[in-house]
């Protein structure tokens, strides 16, 4: 095949064709899984295979599927896990009815974003409480440290003598 320089020129030629072809040719219809499987096994007519290849050229995400499908036909039997088998078997009840699939709560992947959100809320509550407590303490200490006016002192502490006369030996 061509060397690196030639390959670049060839790539440019291909893209030029593709750019010119876009819009001139109708988008081919997506083939169903059975048609793709038939193509993978070379069981389509030339015309039908052409239609599939036309579509595949615009859908590269399906190319590995077809390579894997071709290999699967020759691959040796591989058992599935017991869990996968049990889950899938449980989809059909004894009477043949299809049971709705409920993903087990434990198996549901919990979003890390939810955990982070809850942790953030808890942390903000703690921080707010601490900041509020510290502000209150600072305010109290500041007021006590300075020479309080009599009125302010009364607000902070109970009046002197409030409880006078309430001792046991008070005169009755």
């Amino acid at each position, binding site marked *: 095949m061509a060397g690196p320089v030639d390959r670049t020129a060839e790539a440019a*030629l291909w*893209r030029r064709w593709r750019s010119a072809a876009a819009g001139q040719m109708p988008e081919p219809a997506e083939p169903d*899984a059975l048609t793709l*499987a*038939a193509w993978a*096994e070379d069981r389509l007519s030339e015309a039908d*295979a052409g239609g*599939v290849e036309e579509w595949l050229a615009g859908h590269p995400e399906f190319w590995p599927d077809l390579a894997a499908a071709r290999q699967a036909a020759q691959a040796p039997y*591989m058992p599935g896990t017991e869990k996968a088998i049990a889950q899938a078997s449980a989809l059909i009840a004894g009477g043949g009815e299809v049971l709705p699939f409920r993903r087990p709560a434990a198996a549901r992947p919990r979003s890390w974003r939810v955990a982070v959100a809850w942790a953030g809320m808890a942390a903000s509550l703690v921080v707010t409480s601490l900041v509020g407590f510290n502000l209150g303490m600072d305010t109290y200490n500041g007021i006590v440290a300075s020479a309080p006016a009599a009125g302010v002192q009364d607000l902070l502490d109970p009046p002197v003598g409030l409880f006078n006369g309430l001792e046991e030996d008070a005169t009755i």
Partner: protein
Amino acid sequence: MAQDTDLAALSRGDKGAWDAFVRRYAGLVMSAVRAVARDGVDVEDLVQEVFVRLCKDEFRLLKTYDPSRAGLSTWLTIVARSTARDVLRRRQLPVTPIEAVPEAQLATAPVQTERLRLPEGLLSPRQKLVLSMLYDRDMEVAEIATALGVDPQTVRSTHHKAMLKLRTHFATEENKP
């Protein structure tokens, strides 16, 4: 393969046929979805999604399978991988890391409007496919040969013929008055 599977009983929802089908093909489905899934994804979960899709709406998808057109393993592999990709896309989980995507696919092509009338059938579908794999996906000849199930020499020959057609066509267009 399909001969071991009672498709008629399966489509009727026969429990025994379904269990036998699951036991026979769960491993194949698992291999298929594992190749599509990435780290952090529950493969067994994806397997279950595939079997759900197969029996949904009274086995609508399973009833479309025709053994005269393709093997059951081949068809199931395509269905499994396609279902897994759809599920992962819905969950918006990364399937392919960006580093794995060829740069050619990431780069935005400059807007070029070329007023060129291309003759119909200039390139065959197979030629277009090979060129797309080579230049859009940066695949090697051996990879393309495996993907298409052909000999590497066939890929080279297809490429050569396609490039010859393109060079001739564009040279002709450029020489027109």
